[in-house]
């Protein structure tokens, strides 16, 4: 609707209706529109466990909500009594009689109208916090059929322990819908909050922000191996921009031979863990190369008199490479085979496009594109590589760049200037559930790793 309006205005103003190509926007369905309704009332704890239930309930609710699998039933609609364990449920004497929350049907019927109920309680036991967690399908006629999950979780008696058991409970609930919890995954990014651009990491909710490099130089454009064990990035620490690789387990630098060139940059670690794709100016124009993980056995893949950067290999096939090239004019997204053949442009030539990133499914890429906006005003788009259909996820709230898929294939982390500075945000792949993760200094080029 908005788009039609915009098109109409443009036609009137420019009088050039022929130039206003009808975009082929379609919704790339990463997120199913039909969502399950889930109720997750605040749980209580006995003894010392109660002190940490605020952190617990926040964590559980936001993990479930951010997963994108559920429409969370609003807490204000819940019945007064919340069953904390299976024994608390009561069978209503007659169907339709309210038990004030103690009947399954009390949750299935209005105003809650939920499909599922996640409940339980915590207690302190043997110096640990214990969570008893249950998931009920409240549409079932009896309790025996309704119980889907019933499990105990253990953590330390502190806020961290309370958050841990909440994350684990949420992960088990998500698993029932085939979802992958993002708890334990890491986001790597660049921050200048120390005065220099260094590589940092954080948890997917923005907590635990840690500085990983201290080169006091310019260290940018991190990439993470699919197994999360190796972090590659571009740094000026040795003079000209070159590629550095760190082990995420030890924090140590792994050897990498940068070929003799004014520029070696934008690394991408192959799914097999043995090779690396990158861009180098060794032959003049910056072109795409592949090499062993230590930089040896290098080979040029692309061949053009144009700037070509950001190679990203398809994680499913290990063959298709998407990359950014200026070979047809302003920077656009291209695809080619691993041997450099079969080059085709994916974006239609409008505006400038950059930052392609494969969804783990190997079918869809997220990327940034200025299509429909002024030069430099990037927004996040998705594209089905086979059909080249695309959809737009952000809508001109500042610059929106460098989308990177979460390991669950449903979330994206990206950089946006919508707050006035460069900050890192996450969102669901339908553009909803936007959360700002950083606020210190300026922050760029996030990548989401296992």
């Amino acid at each position, binding site marked *: 609707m908005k788009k039609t309006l915009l098109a109409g205005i443009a036609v009137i103003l420019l009088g050039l209706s022929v130039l206003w190509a009808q975009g082929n926007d379609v919704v790339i369905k990463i997120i199913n529109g039909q969502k399950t309704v889930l109720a997750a009332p605040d749980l209580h704890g006995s003894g010392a466990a109660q002190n940490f239930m605020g952190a617990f309930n926040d964590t559980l609710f936001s993990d479930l909500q951010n997963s994108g699998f559920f429409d969370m039933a609003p807490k204000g609609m819940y019945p007064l009594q919340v069953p904390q364990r299976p024994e608390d449920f009561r069978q209503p004497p007659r169907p339709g009689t309210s038990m004030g929350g103690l009947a399954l049907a009390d949750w299935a019927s209005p105003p809650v109208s939920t499909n599922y109920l996640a409940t339980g309680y915590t207690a302190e036991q043997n110096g640990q916090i214990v969570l008893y967690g249950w998931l009920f399908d409240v549409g079932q006629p009896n309790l025996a059929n309704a119980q889907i999950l019933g499990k105990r979780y253990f953590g330390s008696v502190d806020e961290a322990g309370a958050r841990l058991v909440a994350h684990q409970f949420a992960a088990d609930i998500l698993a029932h819908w085939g979802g992958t919890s993002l708890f334990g995954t890491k986001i790597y990014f660049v921050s200048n909050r120390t005065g220099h651009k260094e590589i940092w990491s954080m948890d997917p909710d923005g907590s635990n922000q840690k500085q990983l490099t201290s080169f006091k130089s310019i260290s940018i454009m991190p990439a993470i191996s699919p197994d999360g064990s190796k972090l590659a990035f571009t740094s000026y620490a040795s003079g000209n921009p070159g590629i550095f690789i760190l082990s995420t387990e030890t924090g140590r630098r792994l050897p990498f031979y940068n070929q003799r060139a004014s520029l070696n940059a934008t690394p991408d670690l192959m799914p097999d863990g043995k090779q690396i794709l990158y*861009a180098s100016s060794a032959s*003049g124009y910056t072109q795409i190369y592949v090499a062993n993980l230590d930089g040896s056995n290098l080979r040029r893949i692309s061949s053009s008199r144009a*700037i070509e950067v*950001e190679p990203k290999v398809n994680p499913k096939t290990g063959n298709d490479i998407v990359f950014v090239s200026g070979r047809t004019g302003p920077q656009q997204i291209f695809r080619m085979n691993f041997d450099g053949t079969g080059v085709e442009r994916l974006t239609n030539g409008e505006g400038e496009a950059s930052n392609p990133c494969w969804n783990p499914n190997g079918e869809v890429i997220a990327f940034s594109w200025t299509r429909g906006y002024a030069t430099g005003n990037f927004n996040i788009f998705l594209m089905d590589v086979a059909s080249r259909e695309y959809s737009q996820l952000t809508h001109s709230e500042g610059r929106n760049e460098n989308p990177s898929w979460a390991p669950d294939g449903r979330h994206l982390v990206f950089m946006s200037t919508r707050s006035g500075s460069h900050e890192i945000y996450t969102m669901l792949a339908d553009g909803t559930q936007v959360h700002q993760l950083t606020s210190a200094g300026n922050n760029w080029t996030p990548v989401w790793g296992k």
Partner: protein
Amino acid sequence: MLLKRKWSIICIAIALVMVASGCKKKAPPPPPPAPPPTKTVEAPPPAAPDITEFSAEPSSIERGGSSTLKWTVTNANQITIDNGVGSVQATGSRSVYPNQTTTYTLRATGPGGTLSKSATVNVTAPPPPAAPPPAKPDLGQRMSALQDAYYDYDKSDVRDDARSALTKDADLLKSIFQDFPDAVITLEGHCDERGSAEYNLGLGDRRATSAKDFLVQLGVPADKLKTISYGKERPVCTESNEECWQRNRRAHFSTGQ
């Protein structure tokens, strides 16, 4: 008894009369007897001080050098030399370091009088040291005259204005490399903020390279010029307008990282 009393009264009366008369009129005393004529011995007069020697050796020095004052004085109990030397013994020597021609005056005072004598130390200025060779301005100063080459958006070909800037730069660079044969100069390629950071690394590299190629064609030795791309990582300004963007789309000379 009565007689005795009479005499005492008479004596007192006479004494009173005498005292009374004494107060009224003094009779001149008789002159003292003249002393006996003494026999005078002719005593010799005290000897006048004598300055046998007061010299400055050498009497002519270069500034910063020293001269030795030497003196021998007799018949004096107080001897001073001015110009900061002060009291001295009858015989002695002292090194002096006058900054300019100075006349030292020795003053000898004794029972027989005072005597002065002067000695002059001529101070000559040393010849000025050899003038240092004319100072070369340092490399950074020389390089400040090099002009940046500016580029169009997403372009790396050398524009007309960049062509004339780089032509002047080529002459300057040749003269710089003559004076600083070991210098290596870096050409930095920069971009404005609009394109992606990743693509701009490649674009900045093209800009630095095209400026270098142009300079090499004009005879600047290729091995003296390095290139580095900063993409949009080191902008000279950060406003979002064309004036600032143009300032950032450039090739810039530096001495390296």
